[in-house]
């Protein structure tokens, strides 16, 4: 008898697929799922033809905000977002890094005014691959490893 672990389909909600395995829990963190009262399935290190291994996050009863999609795009630039209704995928979209990021990222420069006075943050994407962004205020250029999400 073969034993198989099944992850149940969700009736309504969002499935984020094609997450790099090591970013799976970061996606869960972005979506602040610890306080979400409905079904959540998180799968990591799943086999993938294109990625080797991948992660999937399924969340019932949740649709994503623009800020959440932008944040996911930064850590999982090849992720897909599937919107589910009545157990069917009604919309499938690929995340993409926008040209500017509003209140999504914390500036890595401790002397930036945004880290010292209450204010919004704004970054311009100057290169998508490799990811490079520039702070609208202090003009520091940050690479992917410097990026901290708000």
């Amino acid at each position, binding site marked *: 008898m073969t034993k198989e672990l099944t992850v149940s389909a969700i009736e309504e909600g969002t499935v984020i697929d094609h997450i790099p395995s090591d970013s799976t829990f970061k996606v869960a963190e972005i979506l602040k799922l610890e306080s979400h009262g409905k079904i959540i399935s998180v799968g990591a290190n799943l086999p993938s033809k294109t990625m080797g291994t991948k992660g999937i996050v399924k969340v019932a009863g949740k649709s994503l905000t623009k800020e959440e999609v932008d944040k996911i795009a930064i850590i999982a630039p090849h992720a897909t977002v599937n919107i589910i209704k009545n157990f069917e995928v009604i919309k499938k979209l690929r995340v993409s890094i926008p040209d500017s990021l509003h209140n999504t990222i914390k*500036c890595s*420069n401790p*002397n*930036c*005014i*945004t880290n*010292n*006075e*209450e*204010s919004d943050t704004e970054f311009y994407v100057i290169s998508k691959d490799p990811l490079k962004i520039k*702070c*609208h*205020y*202090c*003009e*520091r*250029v940050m690479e992917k490893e410097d990026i901290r999400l708000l």
Partner: protein
Amino acid sequence: MGFKNRDVISINDFSKQDLLHVLKVAKELEKKPNDGLLKGKIMAALFYEPSTRTRLSFITSMEQLGGRVIGFASGKVTSFTKGETLWDTMKMTENYADVIVVRHPLEGAARLAAEASSKPVINAGDGANQHPTQTMLDLYTIQKVKGKIDGLHIGMLGDLKYGRTVHSLTKALSHFNPTFYFIAPQALQMPKSYLEELDRLKIKYYVEENLFKVSDKLDVLYATRIQKERFADPIEYEKYKGVYRVDEIDRSLDNTEHAAYFQQAANGVHVRKALLALVLGKKE
């Protein structure tokens, strides 16, 4: 783009045409000082950080054009110490002044100040980030001394890692087909991001440790001091301060035709007069 009500925050906001226009107006005002041009106008000089040359140069510029100056010369004497935010100070100051000049120790402060204020804001230095009026006066000095800006061989000497004037001037000169020589010990060399940008723009540059290897190739040598206040780690500063003295240039050079640095200080007034007149709409 017109200059009336425009903020002067970063050299990156100015095209080649914009920069040449500022230099042209500065030259006009140097030749023909227009004493009453800014009569009835008030400039607020909000200096949260010490400055001698920049502050005096702005005050002189405004007063020579017939305007008046209000403000402070240290963050210690303001409501800043009582916890007032920069945003609120700007909202208050815009009621008193027609133009606001800000120097602040934090990077990005000038951009935030400009967003808060409905009156034009001129950045007089925001931490290690930008000091655009310094860059414009450097361009003006080079143009005046060499008779042109295009196609020059420019040496940058000193702390190229932290020196904001070096970064801004490199960016501004990139419009003018230069060849750069970056002269500094490895640990204080130009940041990679600036060199990558020069590669992208196909601008020729050389990275060198020894000034004397390249000195005969240079049209201009731009020398900066090692700025103690920009080093996060005082031990790192101690390590390098001996490489260049704080007074890097020997006094015996002062009275030779090779020294442009006192002229540079005088040029600050012409350039700042031009910017004040432009943003206040008194020069087209």
